[in-house]
C-alpha cells in the first residue's frame, strides 16, 4: 500500500518523531509513505478569519494527491479535519468547486474529489487490522497505563470527520489494547487541550491544558498519548513552558506517542522512534517503559501448540 504522506506544518519542524515513528511502524506492514514537497498548509490556521480561504488550501493538496494517483495519509487531527471538511463542502457546492478549479488550472491541477483522506490510526485499524498487528508483535507492554487524548477535530463533527463513534471511540481502545497497555478511562479523553486558544488567550488555553494534566494524573495515568499534533505540542512544549515559569521542581506528565509505543512492541529501535525527542520524557521514563516490555507469552504458547499438532 502507498499513500501521499501529509505531514502539515507542525510535524516536520516541531514533531519529527511523530512522522518518523509512524513511518517506521507502517513500513513493517508494507505501507509506503510518499513525501510530496508541493503540499501546502491545510488551511486550518486561517479558519477564524475567512472560511473560503480555509477551504482552498486543502483542495489544492487533494488535487496534487489526485494527480499523483494517491490517497492521503494524515497524522495531525486539524489537517485531517480540514481536508475532510473541504471535501465535504465541495461535494455540496459545485459553484465553489468551479471557482477553485479555475484557480488551480493555472498550475495544471484539477480537483475531482477522487482522493480519500485517511487517518493513520484508521489505516492501522482497518487496513492492517488488529490481528495482523498482533502477529507481528515482538513485545507487549503490560502494566503501562496511558491516558489517550483524542483531540477534538478527529472526532467531531462526526458527519465531517467520519473517524469513529464520537461518544465512545473504539479505534484507540483496540490499538492500545493490542500492545498490552491499558488505555485508562479518564474524563479528558474526548475533550479539548486548549491549543486553539493559544496565542489568542493564553490564560484560558493553559487552564484547559492544566485541567487535562491534572485529570490524567488523578486517573492514574503513567503517560499521556495525544493523537493530534496540536495536543502533542500543548503537552510536550506548553507544559514545559508552564513548568519553567513555575519552578524547576515541577513534575511533568510525560508524552508517549502511539506509534512510539507500538514501534517498541514491534521491535523497532527507540532511537528510530525518537522517543527521547519528546521533551517531557526523561531517561527514567524510557527505562520504565522498556522494563515493561516482554514477549507476548500467550501467543508463543499457542504457536508452540500449533507446531506440535
Amino acid at each position, binding site marked *: 500500500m502507498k499513500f501521499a504522506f501529509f505531514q502539515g*506544518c*507542525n510535524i516536520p519542524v516541531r514533531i519529527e518523531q511523530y512522522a518518523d515513528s509512524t513511518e517506521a511502524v507502517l513500513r513493517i506492514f508494507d505501507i509506503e509513505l510518499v513525501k510530496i514537497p508541493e503540499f501546502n498548509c491545510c488551511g486550518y490556521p*486561517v479558519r477564524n*478569519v*475567512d472560511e473560503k480561504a480555509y477551504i482552498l488550501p486543502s483542495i489544492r493538496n487533494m488535487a496534487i494527491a489526485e494527480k499523483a494517483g494517491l490517497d492521503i495519509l494524515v497524522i495531525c487531527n486539524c489537517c485531517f479535519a480540514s481536508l475532510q471538511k473541504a471535501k465535504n463542502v465541495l461535494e455540496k457546492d459545485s459553484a465553489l468547486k468551479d471557482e477553485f478549479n479555475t484557480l488551480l488550472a493555472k498550475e495544471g491541477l484539477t480537483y475531482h474529489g477522487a482522493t480519500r483522506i485517511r487517518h493513520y490510526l484508521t489505516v492501522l485499524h482497518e487496513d492492517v487490522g488488529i490481528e495482523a498487528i498482533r502477529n507481528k508483535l515482538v513485545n507487549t507492554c503490560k502494566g503501562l497505563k496511558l491516558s489517550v487524548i483524542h483531540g477534538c*477535530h478527529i*472526532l467531531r463533527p462526526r458527519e465531517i470527520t467520519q473517524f469513529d463513534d464520537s461518544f465512545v471511540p473504539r479505534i484507540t481502545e483496540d490499538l492500545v489494547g493490542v500492545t498490552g497497555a491499558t488505555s485508562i478511562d479518564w474524563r479528558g479523553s474526548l475533550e*479539548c487541550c486548549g491549543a486553539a486558544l493559544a496565542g489568542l488567550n493564553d490564560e484560558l488555553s493553559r487552564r484547559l491544558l492544566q485541567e487535562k494534566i491534572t485529570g490524567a494524573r488523578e486517573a492514574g495515568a503513567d503517560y499521556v498519548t495525544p493523537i493530534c499534533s496540536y495536543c502533542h*505540542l500543548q503537552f510536550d512544549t506548553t507544559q514545559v513552558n508552564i513548568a519553567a515559569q513555575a519552578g524547576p521542581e515541577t513534575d511533568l506528565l510525560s508524552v508517549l506517542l502511539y506509534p512510539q509505543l507500538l514501534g517498541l512492541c514491534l521491535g523497532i529501535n527507540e532511537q528510530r522512534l525518537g522517543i527521547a525527542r519528546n521533551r517531557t520524557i526523561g531517561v527514567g521514563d524510557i527505562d520504565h517503559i522498556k522494563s515493561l516490555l516482554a514477549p507476548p507469552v500467550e501467543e508463543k504458547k499457542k504457536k508452540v501448540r500449533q507446531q506440535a499438532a
Partner: protein
Amino acid sequence: MNFTLLLTVAVSICLIGIVLRFYVWFSQGIHPPATSSSLPQRLAAAGRAMGGALFGPRLVTILKSIFLDLLFQQRVFNKNTLRWLAHGLIFTGFLLLFFLHALDSLITEKLFSGYVSTLNPYLFLRNLFGLMVLAGVTIAVYRRITLRPQRLKTYAGDWAALIFVGGIILSGMLLEGAKISSYSTFQRMVEDYGDVAGDQEQQALEAFWVKENGLVIAHRKVEMTTALVDQGREISGRSCIECHAPNTSAFVSYGLARITGPIAAAAGDAGAVNFLWYLHILFCLSFLAWLPFSKMFHIIAAPVSLIITRIMGKENGEPANVLTRQMIGLSACTHCGACSLECSSNMFFESFQNDFILPSEKVQFLKNLAAGRELDPDTLKKLQQGLYICTSCDRCTDICPSGINLKELFVSSRYALLAHGIPETSMLSHFSFPLALAQYRVDDHLKALKILEQLFKKSFRVLADMVQPLTLTRPGKFSNPSYRSCYSCQRCTNICPVVRSFDNPGEALGLLPHQIIYSLGIGNVDLAMGSKMIWSCSTCYLCQEHCPNQVELCDIFYGLKNAAIAKIEEGDRS
C-alpha cells in the same frame, strides 16, 4: 572615450557602492531598534565573532561551507537540479571568463607562459565558457517564465541581471565574430605579424582565410581556386599559425561570423568591430558599477550569509550581531523565489491577494523597513498582514540558497511592525499558535492583542452596555440557518469546557453559547459578533455534537468570527 577613464569610473562606483553596502550592514536593522547598539559596538561584535570563527575549531566548518555551500551550492542541489545547473553554468562560466579573459594580463599571462589570446585552448575555452553562461541564462529565463503560475514573481531588476550577464557574453561573442570576418582586422594582423611576400601571396592567404577562417571580403571579388587556397594554407602555416589557431576553434563566434560577416562588411567592418568593442566594454563596466546596488551584490553577501548560517544555524549570537546578521541576510537575497515556490502559505496568497504573504516579496521590501523609510499606512498594513499570515513551518529558511535566516527576520519584523499600533486581525487566527509555543516577545504580543480588543469594543456594543430593551427583528440574516432549530435546552452551555472554566462565565464571556444562538434567533447578529464568547471558543465541537437539534454551534461561531473580522476590516477601510 578613453578605456582607462571608463574603467576607473566603473571601478570607483563599484567600490563606493560596496563600501556603502557594508556601512548599511553595520548601521541598519529591523528589530530591536538600530539605536540599541552603535556602529563601533556592532563592528567590534562582528570582529569578535569573526575572530572566534577563524581562529578556532570552527575553521573546519568554514572550509566545509566554502566547498559545500559556496562552490558546490549544496542547498540548491538538494532542492532542484535544474536551478543548480543554471546557477552552476553561469557561476563557473562567468568566473572563469572574468579571471582568465577579463584579467588575462594579470592572471593568465602569469600562469601560462605561452599565453596568446588567439591560441588554443584559450580561443576554444572562451567560447565554451561563454556558451555555458548563455545556457545558464537561458534556463534561468525559462524558469522565470514557466514558474509564473507557481507564484514566482519577477521584477525589472531580475530581468536586468539576466540581460547584463547575457549581454556581456553575447556582445563579446559578436565582437569576436566581427573580428573574425573583418578585413581590416585581417590586414592589420598581416601587417603586424605576417610574413607575406608580394600581392600574389597576399591573395593566396586571403583566399585561404576566406575559405576556412570566416574572413569576409566584400569590396572586391576574391579568386578562390584550390591551388590558391592550398598556397594560402602553406603561407598561413608559415606565418600565422604559431600565434593564431584556426578560427573554427572559436566555435560560437565563428558561427556568428558566418551570419554577421556580410552585414558587417556591408556596413563597414572596422566600424562594426569598433562599435561592438564599445558595446562589450559598456556592458561589462556598467555591470561592474551596477553590481553593488543590485541583487548581484549577493556575490559578496551570500557567501558571508551562508558561512554564518553554517556556523550558527537558526540561533542568534551576540545581541549586537543580531541586527548585522539581519542586514547581511537582506542583502544576500537574489529574489530567486525558491522560498515562495514552497511556501506553505501560498494558497493564502491566492485568497488574500497580498504579495507580502510570499516570503521572497517580504524580504525584498523589508530593506525599506530596515532603512527606517517612512511607509504609507496601506503598505504598512499589507506588510503586517503578510508577515502574520505565516504557518511558521520554517520551510523558507531551510530552502533559501543564500542561507538567510528568514524565520528570525520575519519574527523580528512582525513585532517591529505591531509596535506601530496598527491592529492586526490575523492575530486572531491560529498563526498565533506557534508564536505562543515559541514564546517570542510575549509582552509585545499581548500588547498587540490589547489593541485589537479595544477595536472590538469600539466596533461592537455588548449586552452589558445596553440600556434599551432588545428589540425583535426578523431572523434570517445569518448564513448558517441551523440556529433556527434551537429549542432552548441549554445543553450547549452546560457541556462547554470554556464556560465551566469561569466562576462567573456570563461576565467573562459576554454571552454564553445558548445566548449566542438566541441572539441569532431574534435577528441580532451584531450582538453575537461582539461577544467575547466566540473568541474564547476552544472549537472542541462538544456543543455541536451534543445538541439534540443539530444546531451547528461551533460552525456558527466560526461564521461569526469571520463576519466580525470582515466588519472590522471594512470599518477600517471606510
